[in-house]
């Protein structure tokens, strides 16, 4: 087992489905962070068999919406002074802004630069979202 030192202040993203860790790492833009970031893959887990885990030693606020989109079952632990401050279970966000892209080639968002395009959750099971402009359903 590899030992990673205890986190003093930051976030631990736990219970990531094995294989999703890198996706989350990339989507959160953690490769651009100057702080200490650890991505652990295929960590043995009693509950899940195998899981991925990310530890981020940082002060900055990360937009965690994307986490709910990729893997709504993850747990986010907020740590301060080496102590667990609070635990948050995530869920699929009702509205997603600026992360998804419309799949409809005839959508106006394919022709004009729109950064704040909103997608509304229409089906929790299939994780499908509806484009605010053309109503086309899309998923992450």
């Amino acid at each position, binding site marked *: 087992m590899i030992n990673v030192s205890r986190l003093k202040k930051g976030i631990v993203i736990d219970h990531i489905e094995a294989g999703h860790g890198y996706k989350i790492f990339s989507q959160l833009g953690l490769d651009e962070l100057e702080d200490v970031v650890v991505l652990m893959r295929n960590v043995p887990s009693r509950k899940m068999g195998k899981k991925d885990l990310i530890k981020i030693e940082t002060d900055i606020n990360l937009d965690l919406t994307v986490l709910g989109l990729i893997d709504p079952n993850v747990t986010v632990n907020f740590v301060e002074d080496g102590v667990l401050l609070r635990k948050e279970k995530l869920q699929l966000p009702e509205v997603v802004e600026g992360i998804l892209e419309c799949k*409809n080639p*005839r*959508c*106006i*968002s*394919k*022709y*004009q*630069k*729109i950064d704040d395009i909103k997608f509304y959750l229409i089906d929790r099971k299939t994780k499908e979202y509806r*484009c*605010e*402009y*053309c*109503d*086309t*359903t899309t998923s992450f």
Partner: protein
Amino acid sequence: MLKGRHLIEPSEFRIDELEEIFGLADSIIQKPENYSEICKNKLLASLFYEPSTRTKFSFDAAMLRLGGQVIGFSDPNTSSVAKGETLKDTIITISNYVDIVVVRHPQEGTAKLMSKYALVPVINAGDGGHQHPTQTLTDLLTIRHYKKSLKNHCIAVCGDLKFGRTIHSLVKAMHRYEGTKFIFISPEELRIPRYIKDLLDPDSYRETTSLDEAIGEADILYMSRVQRERFVSEYEYLRLKDYFILTPEKMLMAKEDMIVMHPLPRVNEIAEEVDDDKRAVYFHQAKFGMYVRMALIIKLLGLE
């Protein structure tokens, strides 16, 4: 309150709000002279990024009959679009000149995008294969006029139910009225999309590939054109375009008080001989289209 609102898709307006518009349209039909100056000194911008003679004429005629004036274009190559201006910049600028904007665009969601930045009401006059709400208002006013109510009708829709946005909007609008039943008549390849059926109570519709079998049951028969521009393959278009043709012989099987509607233009899905049948209301439908647009403009401008 409809003053200052946009009309991007038909379901944005509640049933009672639609009724306000239809009630006003009734008054205009009865006494058009009472409304001939109501839009005096008001200006409508008609932005047609793709050609659509009927819809443009209908809006222009509506505004002019209300005593208002119209500016705009029907060829984007002659506008600032050709210089690469964004839609956001276009609408912000134009909003400063006019009181209301009508926009038609080949890309889906354009009217919605423009409405976000517009300082005046925006009416969607068609955005690609997505929405065409004033056509839906036209259809509803026509049904309400001939059938005296929008409740408890059996509506048979026939033709291209897959790509026909007029049909999708009509079904979405009519399913909100009590007692509506649908019969979807189409070839297998052009069936109504799943997401539309998901909106409906499973007991409120059925699907068939036979016009003969369904026509006797309908209170309203809504015919549609198989549109060449929606097909990638010319062969597929030619194979399906003549699948259903409404003829005088088929009309013999229909109810005495059934009405035949069509958003126009027709190609050959309704034989010309049917035009003489008193149940054929599609040419009158176009007139209702102008009246309902007159009522809509008045309401969005808050003039009544």
